[in-house]
């Protein structure tokens, strides 16, 4: 209802109600509109309790009347019953979202605490009953501290490449896809044996999975951490060592940008969110906050893993880098990409062929999570 209609109705109400004062029986029949007018007259006279009584009848008779609900809100407000008033104004708004007056009232009255209305009990559905039983069974035995520390209970381990995509190949023919699968499987077993963290693999054999499907697995299991395992390569056969990447808007250096470009391959990124002029979304603020928190957390995890590699592995530490990796970007959790050694370096390649060495790498990653 716009202001003009509102004032018009007020004027109309005043006219009709003055007639009603003279011929009450003639006008105050049982129609919702008539009851609305009567309620309006009572509001104008400050008889709010009577107005509520009449207007409740009006809304019961015509539950689609935003006008009657708006009046009921005014009557309750006059009585100082804020919660009931807000409830009536909200109902008016549900019926007519254009009702500026009711919206204004709701916005003004809800700036400060208001009492709550008692809830109406409804019969429970079969799913609600199942949910209640499940809650009693599961939630009761779970406890958590009031801590804002990031928690990891589920990890998705991604073996990079696979199938027709062999990744980088070493001088002796060792393929990146085989090493990553070996490492991922060992880490998965280690995590499962540890018992504290649930682990899931993106692939369990030699087949190709597109990058978008890998993060889909992370989302499928609501993972708390996504670890993508890769082995580095460089035209310079002497290049060696381990490094950890995490997703950030900008690459930390040229080399990081190059690696991201190589790993991203043929992908196209999501379209950037186009900001709508004159619009603000709480959910969008939360979404960006969430994303930035995950990136920050990814940076912490990356640092932690790289520290472990420094002490646990016979590799030179090439440090932590950030870049815009598709495989990491689409994950709804902290995500990191490990490059444990250079397959292009003959010395690293020979280490990566050894099961005992692969166990060492898997152990080191495991300790970074634990």
């Amino acid at each position: 209802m716009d202001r003009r209609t509102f004032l018009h109705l007020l004027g109309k109400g005043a006219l009709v109600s003055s007639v009603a004062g003279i011929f009450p029986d003639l006008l105050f029949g049982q129609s919702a509109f008539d009851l609305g007018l009567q309620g309006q007259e009572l509001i104008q006279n400050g008889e709010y309790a009577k107005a509520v009584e009449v207007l409740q009848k009006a809304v019961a008779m015509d539950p689609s009347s935003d006008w009657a609900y708006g009046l009921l809100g005014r009557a309750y407000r006059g009585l100082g019953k804020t919660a009931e008033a807000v409830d009536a104004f909200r109902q008016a708004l549900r019926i007519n979202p254009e009702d500026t007056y009711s919206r204004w009232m709701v916005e003004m009255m809800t700036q400060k605490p208001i009492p709550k209305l008692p809830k109406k009990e409804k019969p429970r559905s079969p799913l609600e009953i199942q949910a209640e039983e499940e809650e009693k069974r599961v939630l009761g035995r779970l406890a958590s501290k009031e801590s804002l520390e990031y928690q990891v209970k589920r990890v998705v381990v991604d073996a990079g490449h696979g199938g027709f995509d062999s990744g980088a190949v070493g001088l002796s023919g060792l393929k990146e896809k085989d090493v990553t699968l070996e490492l991922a499987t060992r880490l998965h077993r280690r995590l499962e044996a540890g018992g504290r963290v649930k682990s899931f693999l993106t692939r369990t054999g030699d087949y190709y999975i597109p990058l978008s499907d890998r993060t889909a697995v992370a989302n499928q299991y609501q993972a708390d951490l996504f670890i993508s395992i890769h082995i580095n390569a460089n035209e310079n056969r002497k290049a060696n060592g381990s490094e950890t990447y995490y997703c950030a808007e900008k690459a930390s250096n040229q080399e990081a940008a190059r690696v991201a470009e190589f790993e991203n391959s043929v992908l196209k990124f999501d379209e950037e969110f186009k900001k709508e002029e004159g619009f603000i979304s709480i959910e969008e603020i939360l979404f960006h906050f969430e994303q930035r928190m995950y990136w920050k957390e990814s940076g912490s995890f990356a640092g932690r893993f790289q520290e472990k590699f420094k002490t646990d592995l016979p590799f030179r530490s090439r440090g932590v880098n950030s870049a815009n990796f598709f495989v990491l970007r689409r994950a709804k959790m902290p995500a990191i990409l490990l490059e444990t050694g250079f397959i292009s370096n003959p010395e690293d390649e020979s280490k990566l062929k050894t099961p005992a060495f692969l166990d060492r790498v898997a152990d080191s990653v495991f300790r970074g999570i634990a």
Partner: protein
Amino acid sequence: MRTLWGRLILVATMFAVFAGAAAWAADVNDLLFEGADHHYRGLVDQAIGKFQEALRLDPENEYAHNQLGILYAKKERYDDAFREFSKVVEIDGRNTFAHLWLGILYLRKNDLDRGFTKFNEVIALDPGNADAYYFIGAIYNIRHNPVKAIEYLKKARDADSEEAETHYRLGTAFSNLDMVHNALLEYDRTMALKPSHTKAMNDMGWILYNQGKVDEAVDKWKKVLETNPKDRDAQSNLAKAYGDMALKLQGEGKTKKAVQYWKQMLSVQPGNKAAVYYLKKYQ
């Protein structure tokens, strides 16, 4: 005589003061009403003008300051928005709306601790504030602490069950604990309030998929694409499901059937490298 004139002057002055005050009140309320109307209609600049005018007449009007805060945030003038909400808190520390928005603006600045503190302040002022519980629940969700997230989101839900996002986030927290009945119930409630909630549909799909109800999951994701054909998550989810089925059939030697799934994979993700490769290989 002097006394009579004096009384007349006093009466006239009082009349002028009361009449002026009545006119002032009417003016302020008119401006607030017009500002609220402009705001609703998306006329941000006009709404700002009206609320600024209202504040010139009534500098401590909390509603006008709060509305200006939101309007400035809409124009990405976040520092101005912060100033307006802070002003409200100065005027009346019980204004929970302003406290909430200060908390939201802290989150926008990545200041997790201050945001969290603000929302707790709101709860201290108003133990029934659904929004404050929601934000704290959302923060726990983002910190992947589903137990605490559930505790707060349930309070948000119990205080106001009409918010689709509360049900959705509660659904994800339950899903994170494998409490599938509760998760599905909350996703159902999300959908009842907002049938176009694609994130809820996508997540429901995974619960069904993980329960082995592949067809039902696929239906959910297809429904997402009906709502938003560009939904990347639904495309990836469907591609993953088709890919899983194709690989399984391929492993069983049922290449012809597998080819059908690779085709479907390609239809939802044109250019999908796996689908292109296997179709080329087996067709």
